């Protein structure tokens, strides 16, 4: 938090967002929600905690709307706020069984430094990838995410052990990651965004 305070409190920058243009800020804010959710799920390893920290992050972003410098990346600014909110969350919940400590969260956050992927593109690509899944796999995803069934229930309908269902779900996610990387790689080529694979 200290670092953020330092960078934002001295914000007598000339190009701050015009307070009258709240509509623009709200659009930025809404546009970045899904991206921030993914970011926080990754940093915290837990969707419910991510939801909570996202709410806090939104409040802070709103209060500090004037600190955002027009022309810079809103996603990067938002992630920065979210990162410090995640650290604050870790400190507040020290006694709870959290997945990661500050050191890992810091390194995970670094993993996003070169990620400027348009979230809409990613989600669109994911839908395409889902449509290519075999029906049996799609059925499991639906049960898990859409019907919000417990692993135990899915295991009984699929006649598998619970750990087999968990692994099957991981394999489906991994197949989607592979598919996404292919599709987004293609799109980069097609759209000529100049951000081709480096590896």
């Amino acid at each position, binding site marked *: 938090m200290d670092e953020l305070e330092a960078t934002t409190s001295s914000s007598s920058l000339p190009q701050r967002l015009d307070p009258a243009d*709240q*509509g623009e800020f*709200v*659009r930025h804010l*809404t*546009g970045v*929600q*899904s991206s921030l*959710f*993914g970011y926080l*799920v*990754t940093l915290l*390893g837990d*969707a*419910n905690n991510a*939801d*909570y920290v996202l*709410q806090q992050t*939104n*409040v802070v972003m*709103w209060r500090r709307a004037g600190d955002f410098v027009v022309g810079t990346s809103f996603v990067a600014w938002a992630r920065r706020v979210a990162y410090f909110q995640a650290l604050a969350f870790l400190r507040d919940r020290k006694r709870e*069984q959290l*997945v990661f*400590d500050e050191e890992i969260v810091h*390194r*995970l956050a670094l*993993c*996003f430094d*070169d990620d400027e*992927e348009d979230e809409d593109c*990613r*989600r*669109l690509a*994911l*839908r395409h990838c889902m449509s290519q899944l075999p029906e049996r796999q799609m059925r499991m*995803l*639906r049960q898990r*995410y*859409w019907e*919000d069934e417990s*692993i135990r229930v899915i295991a009984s309908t699929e006649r598998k052990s*619970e*750990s087999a269902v*968990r*692994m099957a*779900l*991981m*394999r489906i*996610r*991994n197949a*989607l*990651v592979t598919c*996404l*990387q292919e599709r*987004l*790689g293609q799109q*980069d080529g097609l759209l000529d965004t100049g951000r081709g*694979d*480096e*590896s």
Partner: protein
Amino acid sequence: MKDNSGLKPSRELMRLMAQLIDGSLDDAGRASLRAELDRPGQMEAYRDLMLVHACLLLDLNRGRGEPTSPLTGSVSGQGGATECAPSRSNNRSPRGLAKFSSWMFPSTVGALAASLVLGVWLEAPSAPSDRVARGPVANDTRGQSVLESRPTPVEGVAVLAREVDSKGLTTPAGGEAEVGMPLEAGGYRLDRGLIQLEFFSGATVVVEGPARFSLVSAERMLMELGKARAHVPNQAEGFTIETPRHDVVDLGTEFAIAVDEGGASEVHVLDGEVELHNHKATAKPLLLSQGKAMALTDGSPTPVRLRLTSFAGQRDIHDAGLATAAGSKSKWVVHSKEVRSRKETLVYYDFDGQSDWSRVLPNASPASDERLDGAVVGCEWAEGRWPGKRALSFKRSSDRVRFHVPGEFTSLTMATWVRIEGFDRWLSSLMLTDGHQLGEVHWQLTNEGQFILGVKAEAEKSHNYFSPFCLNVDDLGRWRHIACVYDGEAGAVSHFLDGRLVSRDLVDVPTPLRIGDAQLGNWNPEIHKVHQLRSLNGRIDEFVMLSKPLAPGEIQAMYEAGRPY
């Protein structure tokens, strides 16, 4: 995501993440996961898998699919514009907004945004609004929000508490006052029937039409024509009714006045004492006690026989009210039976004839599917539109009625009688499907008095059709008929208030509609641990859902048959 795409997650990472996401990771597991992330490429692999997990939650999970920003929405108020103030979204391109209508708008930000927007409005010059008369509004829409009209009641000196068999009370602005509304100072006309005025001083006056009178202040009124019977409690002692030639000042509890076209008046003291002040002030005030009656002409007051029964009082208006209510309820019953028996009626709840302990709302539509019965959760039974008619009261954040409607529909009509008792939050549920999957509809109110029909027509986008600002604080505690029609064939969404069309929008993206598991007065955001509360504060005493688009005339008929006032 693509930068380290060559590196695959290790089997160990997969195993640990399976526990993390779909099970529970113990201390040893967490240590192993941290160690595994230290291996080359595994942190990126972890990130990619988590991002897919997050995307799946967003895309597939119910309850995460909705834009609910106060600043988003489709174009409203075109075509069927009426007395409601147009929505702000008028000024915006619906397409442009849709692009920014992302999947989630957390309530905290919604509230903050709303408060900021409010700040802007308060600075804007406000057009005077006549909410009582519901007259046409100015083109400048910014001053018409509910929030800004909150000071309105302060101008009132009395409230119209009851009316029986009246043709309506004409207000100073030329509109028609409705029961429950505050009345401002000025001249009023009542063509026939009885009304009960309750002055803010505490005095109660029953006026019988034809009558002309003026409200001067909370302590004073002027009768020009007609009969009035005043009941004045101690707190309001000194309450005065002025006649063309005298002031009648109440010192006790009850008196009556009659004024004819020529200005000749009579005063009858039913209880306590009154003082008569001649306007010419040539004589001393005359004290008149219980049982006395005087004719007030140009000369001195002359005694007349007391006529106790010729002035309708509170008891009479109450009894007459019950009789009228029975009449108006029976009109509704007949119409209601017609509506519920239509073959297109999917769900019909009349909220009537139920015991206090009853936890089931029987569906009265022709469909015989138990899932169409409403399961009452939490809500308490209360009085509906008429004495003896039942309603469910939605007060606590958990109160709701759950039901299930199977099938897909090209068109849908929903209509309900609702008594809103507070605009508690940005969104209040009328009828919401659990979560918000493709084709599902959310019908809700905003705290600014707009109606919204949200339709999830695309995987990542909900299309919201906003009405103009239709309700304000003066509507609190009053029964209102609200209806919404999604016409799939014509590609239009219409909102109705009290039988009148208030907005008609073109459908952005057509989709078959689905209801499935749904609730009245609340919603179930499914996985959300941090709930977005949308519980209704108010009562519902009728709800119908049909699989066809009702015509405006049919909605109007439904309102006319069911109106309690």
